Each structure stands twice: as C-alpha cells, then as structure tokens.
C-alpha cells in the first residue's frame, strides 16, 4: 500500500482529535462467480473523521463507486462481493451486519447521494413522499410531524416555495432542485457519514456551485463526515480537506488537499493533476484566413408535439450569428439548455433551422434538402459527446470509419487504406480496424469518431461536448489531438463545451450563449479574462478550482 | 313445469314456409297445426280437419274443420285462413308445386269448410297435406298467410298446442313456448303428427349449444332435460348414466348420400360414376360417421329401407367397397387423371366424415382427389355452382336427409333428374322424370311400388345419387321425463315431467 492512509501528513484542524466515523481497512471486492478470482478493489484503506470532507478522485473505472456502495452495503448481490477487510462505521463492522441491521444503519448513520439527479428519484412519486419514506422507515413521528420536518429540511437546502415542492413530481423540478431533494433525503436524519458519488457532475457550473456550497454548509452545521467522489479536480481543489487517489481498484495516495495538489508523490497522481486544463487561455494570434462557416441570424424553434399534443414551442436558438475561419477553433459555451447543441445540430443539418442562413464557403445550406444536402454532408462533420453510443456496436471500427467514403463512391480497398491512415493520425494502430467498439476505451472511441469524421476531408468539424465524457487524462490527449489536426490540415472547428477550462485551452474564439441567444463573443483571451457581460462573469466565477494552478502544482 | 331441450341447432328463421330447415319445421309443429296428420303406420289421419269428403269423380275434396279451433290471439280458425295458408304453402313447396299443376280450384265453402278441385284424381293431395317434412302444410291466420311466399312472416300465431313467447325469443339461442290452454286435442292417442296433442307441461324451452360436449355435460348435471340429437361419439358418456334415457325417437332415421356433378368431367361419364360407386363402401362411412352399429345400417334404397318404397336393387354396387371392380371400370373409361373436387364441410359433425371416407376410397381406386374444406354454409352455396370444378365448381359433395322427407319421389329431391333444373348434381334422366309424374298420378300402392323400384334401378345405374347408408340419431332425456313419444318429428306433447 502506498501512503499511510490512517496517518495523514497534515490532518485537518477540526478533525484531528476525534475518532474516525468511518474506517475502511484492507477492503477487497471481487466479482462473483468467475472461477479465476477477479478483484475489483484491493487493499483499500482510509478513514474519515467527523466534519471532514474526504474527496476520492481517480479515473473512470478506478473503483470509486464500488467503494462507496460497499460502505452502504449496496453491492449488487449477484455480481460483486467483499472478500476481505473491514468497514467500520462508528466502530461497527458493517460487513458483519445483518441485512436488517444494514437497513437500520442506512439513512440514519450513513447516507448517499448519487450522480444522476434525473434518475435517482422515483419518477412516479411526489418528492415529499419520497423524503417522507425515510422518516416512515426510521422514525415513529406522526404524519404532521414528519411533514413539518420535511418542509424544514427543504427550507434548509434553500428550496423556494417548499409546500409546492413537497407536492411536486421529480420531472417538475430542475436538475439542481432534484439534487437538493436527494440531499434532503440523505441528510434529514442527520447521518454521521454522507457519501456523495459525483453529485454535481450532471449539473451545470452555476448549479454545481450552489450545491457544493450547500453540502459544505450542511456539513458544518451537523458536523457530518463527507466522502465526496468526483473526477473533477476543480471541485476537489474547492472543497476537499483530504484526498484519496484511486487507480485500478487500489488506493494510490492519501493526503491533505494541499499535499496532493501541490506535492503529489506518485507519478500517477502527478499525471492526473497536471492534466487538468488551465483556465488561463493560451495566447494565440488572431487568424486572418478565409471564413469557412458563417451563421447568419440562425434560429430554431421546436414546435410543440404533433397531432394530439398541446403545442408548446421552444425557441432554442434565436438569431445566432457567428463565423469560423479556416484553421480556427470557435468555442460555444453556456449553461445547459442555452441552445448550444441546437446550433451544432442545425449546422450539420440533423435539424432543420427555422430561419437564417448557414453559409459554408458562401453556399447556403440552411434550406438544402435531399440531393442538395448530400454533397454538403462531405463538408461538415460532427463528433458527439457520448463515445459509447456514437459507434454502432455491431460494426467493426474499420467499417464505421469508411462508411462515409463508401457512401460517396470510393472503392472499398482505397477507403480501407485511407481509414488506416486516419487511425494512425488519431494515434490508433491499424489492427483497430478489425475490432468492435466495445473493445476500446472511451478515449479511444472518441478518437475513432474523430477519425471517422475526418475521413471525408470535411472543411468544418463540429464537436458537441466531444471531450466532456472523458477523464481529464484522456481529455488532455484528445484535446491535443484536435489541436494537432487543426494545425496539420487547417480544418475549421466549432467546439461546443460547457467546461470553461477546456474552452480556454483549445479555442481561438469563444461565443457565449444564454437562452438561445449569443450574449458575448470574442477571442478566448478577451472573453475569459475581461468578460463584458454579467452572465459570462457568473459563468467564469462558478468554475470550480479557479484559484489553483494545476499544471504548476500551486495555488494562484 | 318447464322442459328445457337442447335442439340440434338454433332457431333463426321462423317461417316454416320459407325455410325447410329441420329446426324451423320442428318449431312449426310446436305452434301450428296441420289439417291432416300421419301416424306411425304411415296412415293419413284428420288433425285440424274433422273429416273430408271425396266426390264421386275423385276430383273434389271437401274438408271440414273441427269445432273449437282457435288461433293464439283468440280468433276462431276459419276455412278462409286455411285456404290462404294452403295457397302460400303450395307456392313454395316442391310437392305443393306439383300438386298445384293438378288442382283447378281451392275455394271456401262456408266458415268451416272448403274444397279443393282437382283436374285429375291423385292421392298426392292428401299425402301432401299430411306431409311430415319438410315444409309441412301448416295453417296460419289469413292476414299472415297473405304475406308473399318469398318474404318471411313477422307474426307467429298458430293454432297449435304451444304458444310462441315472442318476448323471450333470442334468435339462435333460445325459444320459449307456453302451453296453449285453449287447445282442444283430438281424442285419439297421439302417434307421430296425428292423434291428440295433449300438453302436460307449462313451458317448453329450446336452447341451442354450439359445442356438442356442453349439452351432454349439462344433461348429466341435471341442467337440461332433453337433447334432440346426441353426437354418436359422446353416447358412451350418457349410456352409462342412470339418470338419463338414451333412445332413438326418430325410428325412420336418416340416410346419407353423395352426389356427382353430372355436368362436368370426369363424372359426366357414367362408367366413372359407377367406378366411384363401387369404390365407396357404406361400412366405412357409417363407422366413421356413427361408430356404434346399433344406430346405423347399410342400405341401398334411395327411398330408405323400412319405408313403403324400400328396394334392394344395387346393393352389391353401393354397399361393399369393391376397389378392384372400380379400378377395372376406371381403366375401361380411360380416366385421364382429372382431379376430383370433393367438398368437405368442417363445422358440422353430421356431414364432416363422409367426404373423408369417400376421398380415401376414391384414391384407393386410382382417382386423383382434391378435398376442399370449407364451412357447411359454403358447401351449401357451392353445391349450386354449375361451373366446372377448375372454375370453382365441384365433382362430389355429400349430405344427409331424414327419411321422413325422402321416402317418396317427391319429397326426395335427390331423384329429380331434369338436368340443370334438378337439384345440385343436375342429372339428366328423362325416364325418371316420367316415372315421377306417373307416380303422382298413380293411386294404387302396388303400382307405385313398381314405379319406385324402376326409379331405384335407374338412380343406381345412372349414378343419380350414391346412397351411403342409413342411421338414426338417438335423443337423450332425463328420467324425470315420461311419455316421450317416438316420432320422426321431435314433439313435446304427451310428455310429463316429475319433480324428482
């Protein structure tokens, strides 16, 4: 084991005297049923003291969630089980506890918040009732008492109009509100330990900030120990007392926030931390090349549902104008629902714009249909956010990459040669052609998607959150790749992201959208360092970990 | 007291003049009465008529009605009613139509009597008025009898022993009859449709059950009292039951037969018809259809065995299955392999097995057979199709009739042989047509027997009809019922029901 989990170098001031509420000791988790024992977790040891905020970081698949589920006793019974070790909650080993005892402990001693507020709540039950269920299970309070307590709790998580919220269904609430409901549910019985598994990943930055502040506040108030799982180093820099770094099912390093971020001992930790993109935009010379893509007053209104539904139209993009030059990367940023994807989808004509022009090298493709659209497809390509669903799982990678070429009449063997070249370009070996998507990691898949998009030699590449689903380390590689390609073939890129760090790293120009409108546009340096709009400023301020320079392992 | 009887089909068409369906006929005997009846000795007896008088010249018959006859609506039965009823009936009925060619006048004499004037003497008049089946000459009130013969009547009022309860009638499901308290039965003992129709119960309710198993179960469970026709295959279930009587009531029974299509090859060739008749054996048919030999017997007579006109001519042709002989005839006739289209109904147990056995026998003899399955209704429609088999027509179909109907050359439509005007199959044998007319004119029984024997010979030799054998369908009834009469028509008078 690396690092001394039970003896942090610099224990937080408030927690050093007290006994840990959670102690994980030499925990191992294995897969059930497979004859060669496969361990998902091995040798996990760390602890948390009351009032402490312990962040667990690590790449996707490193075992963060499995660890937290093990603590809750919620490992999927058919597939995973703990093989050795102890998990002590206030001194009680929950691995030895009966199911009934475990149920008693849940929500009273240890509670959990999950990543997806959209799916973590039962969609068919009022949220008040769902919180109420916790009280019904664990307390003997009367109905009125419970209700009062819930309303009080909702108030404590800063919900407006708590009476109404109580009687709302999850789908009637925003993502942030739902996450507050989940938090209320978790904290209403004042558990000693709160496990938060990526509680803000699904939220946009401004909401994320509110939720982080809220957790912090409640933690202070009730002196709760929080096990906070995240892969976002910005968040870690913001809130952590101590940090546990995990990789491939093992704890790599444990230490105080400053130790890990400033003096990481393990090369892996160093690599992770230094991969976090900087918020400081790179200085680039303004481009004077030709304008490849020119959007003029582009608008898209989604009509209400069809024949039987009541019409409720949404103006997702309104009068969006922007232009992209050859070799330029233009970023579109903005909070969720601001219309970024809508613009992207109109540009590649997956959606028909309601009005406005899309000029590609001066040709308007906004109204092109059928046969007119076909030649245009060569010129504009898109890469999507989700690398796992962007490739047809039933087709070999090679076939996916050459699909466009074949569509435009190239011979198969020529196309295959070209595909090999392209895979080389994105850093994959030629034998990838014969394999299926599931045999690749997310980052590799995203490269395949990029290779596929490049196969047709497009003038414009639209990347809709193309790196959002990737780990920082992988993200850094893909960003580097995009930048290289831009340099090499001079492609124009429309880069959509909600992550200002990424935008700062890669974009020449940044366009800020809000409620379907462009509110600010300019060079990356201008927009990020001297924002003119309050909205832009708020976005930047909400970005977590702004005061930490990860590349250089120091605070700003 | 109510008797609940399950009849072989549901009553839907209620006009016994329009329809010849057995269930409609049975319904007719419940609510209507006939002028004359027939007893088990095949004797013609007065029923509504008090008496009839024949004039010297044998050409004028005067019928006088009994006293006390009343329609169900309370009106007295008059001779006007009877004349109107007779006229409507004669327009529609096949025997009636022949009769009318010999009648010069039907006229009211007074309120209680009317006369029929013939062009030439014939016994057909009395015979047709006493006709058991199908389309007996039922008497109705004049206003109803004036409905055109092709249009169904809408009011069901007769003078019979039961009254139709219109409010409880559910077409196809249920018919209810109340005892007609005003009915004056004759004093003679009841026998077939003659004699005193004494009703001993308050109600008779007829039901129809689509699945044959249901009535058998229901009778065993005491839910019903009477099953008109028990499927042969289910008989063992009832025969062992101590609460149930199984008995053949229609002692005359039925005969089953098949028809060739005389218009089209290959059966426009007499030799091939003969070949087929040699090939098909009655034993196999009867076993498949009836099973239990108690209820079946082979019979070559086209007018039925045990009837006055029974005849054995052709028994060596139609009874055994003589495949060798058939093969030989096939060769002689140079059968060219034209497929034989045999119509096979699937939804009616009484007619489903015959085509299968026929097809099997024909195949053995070397015929090529195409068994075409369809519902019975389609067979009925198809059989009238005179087109060639390749254009949707047929070569063979099979059905059955009651001997109560088929016992003479008029009731028996299968022997009509006037080509395309004849019944389905359209045989053209002018000699038979001549004989039939002679039969109508003959009044002497021995003469008639001679005529029918000649018809029998021609029918077999020419392949007009292929008799497949005779069978009786037993009825079953609860032992609570007593006095159930054996009769070719299912009758509900005379029956008593005890409570236990």
């Amino acid at each position: 084991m690396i690092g001394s989990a039970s003896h942090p170098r610099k224990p937080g001031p408030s927690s050093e005297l007290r006994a840990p509420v959670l102690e994980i000791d030499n925990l191992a988790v294995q897969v059930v049923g497979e004859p060669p024992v496969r361990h998902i977790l091995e040798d996990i040891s760390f602890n948390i003291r009351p009032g402490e905020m312990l962040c667990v970081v690590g790449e996707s698949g490193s075992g963060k969630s499995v660890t937290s589920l093990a603590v809750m006793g919620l490992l999927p019974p058919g597939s995973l089980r703990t093989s050795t070790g102890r998990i002590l909650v206030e001194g009680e080993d929950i691995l030895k506890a009966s199911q009934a005892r475990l149920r008693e402990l849940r929500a009273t001693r240890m509670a959990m918040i999950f990543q997806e507020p959209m799916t973590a709540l039962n969609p068919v039950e009022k949220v008040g009732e769902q919180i109420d269920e916790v009280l019904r299970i664990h307390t003997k309070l009367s109905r009125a008492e419970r209700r009062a307590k819930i309303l009080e709790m909702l108030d404590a998580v800063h919900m407006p109009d708590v009476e109404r919220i109580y009687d709302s269904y999850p789908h009637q609430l925003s993502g942030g509100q739902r996450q507050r409901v989940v938090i209320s549910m978790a904290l209403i019985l004042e558990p000693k330990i709160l496990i938060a598994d990526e509680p803000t990943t699904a939220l946009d930055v401004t909401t994320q900030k509110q939720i982080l502040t809220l957790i912090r506040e409640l933690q202070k108030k009730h002196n709760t120990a929080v096990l906070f799982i995240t892969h976002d180093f910005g968040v870690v820099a913001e809130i952590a007392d101590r940090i546990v770094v995990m990789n491939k099912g093992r704890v790599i390093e444990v230490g105080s926030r400053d130790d890990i971020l400033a003096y990481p001992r393990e090369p892996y930790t160093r690599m992770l931390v230094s991969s976090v993109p900087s918020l400081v935009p790179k200085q680039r010379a303004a481009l004077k090349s030709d304008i490849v893509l020119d959007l003029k007053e582009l608008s898209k209104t989604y009509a209400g549902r069809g024949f039987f539904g009541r019409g409720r139209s949404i103006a997702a993009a309104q009068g969006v104008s922007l232009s992209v030059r050859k070799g330029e990367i233009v970023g579109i940023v903005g909070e969720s629902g601001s219309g970024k994807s809508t613009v992207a989808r109109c540009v590649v004509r997956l959606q028909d714009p309601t009005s406005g022009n899309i000029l590609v090298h001066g040709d308007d493709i906004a109204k092109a249909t059928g046969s007119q659209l076909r030649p245009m497809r060569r010129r504009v390509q898109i890469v999507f956010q989700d690398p796992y669903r962007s490739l047809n799982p039933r087709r070999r990678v090679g076939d996916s990459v050459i699909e466009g070429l074949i569509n435009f009449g190239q011979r198969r063997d020529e196309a295959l040669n070209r595909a090999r070249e392209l895979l080389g370009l994105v850093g994959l070996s030629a034998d990838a052609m014969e394999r299926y998507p599931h045999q690749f990691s997310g980052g590799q898949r995203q490269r395949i998607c990029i290779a596929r998009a490049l196969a047709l030699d497009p003038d414009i590449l639209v990347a809709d959150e193309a790196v959002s689903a990737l780990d920082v380390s992988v993200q850094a590689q893909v960003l580097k790749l995009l930048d290289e390609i831009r340099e090499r073939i001079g492609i124009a890129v429309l880069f959509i992201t909600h992550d200002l760090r990424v935008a700062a790293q890669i974009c020449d120009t940044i366009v800020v959208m809000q409620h379907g409108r462009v509110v600010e546009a300019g060079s990356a340096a201008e927009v990020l360092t001297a924002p003119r709009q309050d909205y832009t400023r708020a976005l930047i301020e909400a970005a977590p970990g702004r005061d930490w320079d990860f590349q250089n392992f120091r605070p700003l | 007291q109510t008797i609940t009887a399950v009849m072989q089909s549901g009553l839907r068409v209620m006009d016994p003049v329009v329809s010849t369906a057995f269930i409609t006929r049975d319904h007719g005997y419940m609510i209507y009465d006939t002028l004359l009846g027939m007893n088990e000795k095949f004797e013609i007896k007065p029923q509504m008529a008090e008496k009839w008088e024949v004039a010297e010249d044998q050409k004028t018959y005067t019928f006088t009605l009994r006293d006390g006859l009343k329609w169900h609506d309370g009106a007295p039965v008059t001779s006007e009613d009877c004349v109107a009823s007779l006229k409507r009936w004669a327009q529609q009925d096949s025997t009636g139509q022949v009769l009318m060619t010999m009648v010069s006048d039907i006229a009211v004499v007074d309120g209680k009597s009317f006369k029929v004037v013939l062009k030439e003497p014939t016994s057909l008049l009395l015979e047709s008025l006493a006709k058991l089946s199908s389309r007996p000459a039922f008497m109705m009130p004049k206003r109803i009898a004036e409905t055109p013969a092709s249009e169904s009547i809408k009011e069901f009022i007769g003078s019979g022993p039961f009254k139709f309860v219109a409010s409880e009638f559910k077409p196809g499901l249920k018919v209810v009859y109340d005892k007609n308290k005003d009915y004056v039965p004759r004093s003679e003992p009841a026998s077939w449709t003659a004699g005193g129709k004494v009703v001993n119960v308050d109600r008779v309710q007829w039901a129809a059950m689509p699945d044959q198993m249901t009535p058998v179960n229901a009778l065993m469970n005491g839910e019903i009292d009477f099953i008109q026709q028990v499927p042969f295959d289910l008989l063992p279930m009832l025969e062992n039951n101590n609460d149930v009587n199984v008995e053949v009531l229609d002692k005359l029974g039925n005969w089953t037969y098949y028809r060739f299509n005389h218009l089209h090859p290959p059966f426009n060739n007499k030799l091939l018809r003969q070949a087929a008749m040699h090939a098909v054996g009655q034993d196999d048919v009867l076993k498949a259809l009836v099973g239990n030999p108690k209820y079946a017997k082979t019979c070559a007579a086209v007018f039925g065995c045990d009837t006055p006109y029974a005849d054995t001519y052709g028994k060596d042709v139609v009874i055994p299955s003589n495949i060798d002989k058939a093969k030989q005839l096939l060769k002689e006739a140079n059968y060219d392999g034209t497929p034989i289209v045999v119509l096979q109904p699937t939804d009616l147990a009484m007619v489903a097995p015959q085509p299968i056995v026929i097809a099997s026998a024909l195949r053995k003899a070397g015929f090529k057979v195409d068994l075409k399955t369809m519902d019975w209704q389609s067979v009925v429609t198809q059989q009238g199709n005179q087109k060639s088999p390749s254009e949707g027509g047929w070569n063979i179909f099979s059905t059955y009739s009651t001997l109560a109907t088929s016992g003479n050359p008029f009731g028996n439509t299968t022997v009509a042989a006037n080509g395309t005007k004849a019944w389905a199959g359209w045989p053209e044998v002018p000699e038979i047509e001549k004989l039939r007319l002679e039969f109508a004119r003959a009044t002497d029984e021995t003469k008639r027997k001679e005529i029918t024997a000649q018809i029998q010979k021609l029918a077999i030799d020419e392949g007009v009809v292929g008799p497949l054998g005779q069978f009786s369908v037993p009825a079953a009834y609860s032992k609570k019922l007593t006095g159930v009469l054996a009769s070719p028509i299912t009758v509900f008078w005379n029956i008593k029901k005890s409570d236990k």
Partner: protein
Amino acid sequence: MLPYIARRLLATVPVMVMVAVVVFAILRLTPGDPAAIIAGDDATAEQLDKIRQTMGLDKPIYLQLVQWLARLMQGDLGVSLLSGTPVLSMIGDRMGPSLALALGTIVVTVIIAIPLGIIAAWRQGKLLDRAIMTLSVLGFSVPTFVVGYLLIYSLSIKLGWFPVQGYKPLSEGFWPFAQRLVLPVLALSGVYVALIARITRSSIIEVMGEDFIRTARSKGATERVVLMRHALRNAAVPIVTIIGIGIASLISGVVVTESVFNLPGLGRLVVEAVLARDYPVIQGLILLFSFIYILINLLVDLLYPVFDPRIRY
C-alpha cells in the same frame, strides 16, 4: 383532457369507416348466400332469387354499401337477415355475458398474474421464478377448450361445485350470476395470466435496474417496499399496455369460451353470424368490436397518467 378525448374519439371515425368498408368487401367476396340458409339446402334457384330480391342482396355491392352506410348515419344497423330482429337489439342482448366474461377475466388475470410476476421477479433466476415462468409457457400451450373441458369435468361433473353451462344475468341475483361465470373466466384467464405474469416480471426486472431503486435501498427500505412501492408502480405502464392489448384480443378467446360454456355472448354471435352469412349482424358486430378496441386503447392511454405523472395530455 376533455378536448384530448374528443380529438381521439373523432380520430376513430376514419378507422371505423375503413374497417366497415373492408369487412363489407371481405364479406361480399366470400362465397355463401344467406338466401340459401334461409330457404334450406333444397331450395330452387328461383326461390333463392326471390329471397335475395326481398332482402336487397341482388343489388350491386357498392350500392348495398352506400345504403348500409346511409342507414348507419341515422344510427340504424339494420335487421338480421335470418330472424329479422334488429341488429342493435341482438347486440344488446348478447352484450351482458361477454362483458361479464371479459371483465371477470381481466380481474382474475390481474389478481393472479401480477402477484405471480412480482414473485418471479423477486426470486429472479431462482427455482420459484423458473417454476412460474415454466407454468406460464405451459399456460400458453393448452388450448382454451381443453382447459374448459378439464374444468367442467373436474369441478362440475365430479365435484358438482358449478353448473356446466349457461348464463344468468346479474338481475337474477349475484350468486347465480357469479356461479356460472367462475369456470369460463378461469378457462379464459389461463393464457392471459401467462402473458401478463411474464410481462410483469420482465418490466419489474427492468425497473429494478434503475437508479431510484438504489436510492430506495439506500434509504433503508426493505425489499418488499422496494418491489411493491417503487418497482411495481414504475412497471405499470408496460403492464397496462399489455393488459389493454390483451383485452382487445379477448374477442377471439371469448368465442371459444362462450361455445364451451354456452354463454349467449357476442363471440358466439359473431361466429354464428359469419357461418350464416348474416351480413348486417356481422357488420354491426365488427363496428362494435373496432369501437371497443379503440375505446380500450383510449382508456389505456388515459390510464397512463394515473401511473406515470410525467405523461400528460
């Protein structure tokens, strides 16, 4: 909501017209002649012609269709060719037994199938699950009439618990009514129980993989609560859909059951009418069936919001 229902009902008109026209065409193309049925099988061609004439069957088909549609507009479904009874009153007469049978079947199915499905989902992969699923396949492989005979033989004839056949309307008392429905309902339920138990199981298993189930567990809820309170309600929409489809397809199942148990219902009427080529009756029935079918679909759609508040009209 109300405008939605109105729109939906309005949209049924073209479907029903289509069905009516198609069925009309099918019927008239099918050989078979009501006149022959009325007159009996030894009627002469001349007699048949006369009968056809009086019933208007000699007119060209399109004319018959137009006349039928015109009368339909006035709410007149015509009269049975055979008995002369108005079609509407025939249908009215036969409605009760079928409705009772169908409703009874649904109730019994739901009462049996859903718990079975829940148990199977709960014991997923275990012996009990396998047993239930195997039984449900067996339920699929025994024709309704065989089930019917077995029930009659064992429960009526041998044990004498129930009458073997017949129907008594509710107005003659509940017990006589219910007593005669038990066996048919059981016989008919077999297939549906099998179907719905399977759907319930797989829907629940699907829901059990959702995140909110994990949330519920992390609250300390027992498996029973998780299953009954969280999983079942979320699985309701697919289950209700299948029940809806099931009801719509009940019509065919009803035919056999009504035959075996001699229930005077619509299923029998349709077979009788088809076999007798009683055109007006068939047409009326088909219209009724398609209307019922559409109504059930609508009902199912209206039920969705009850189970899933996200669905709104």
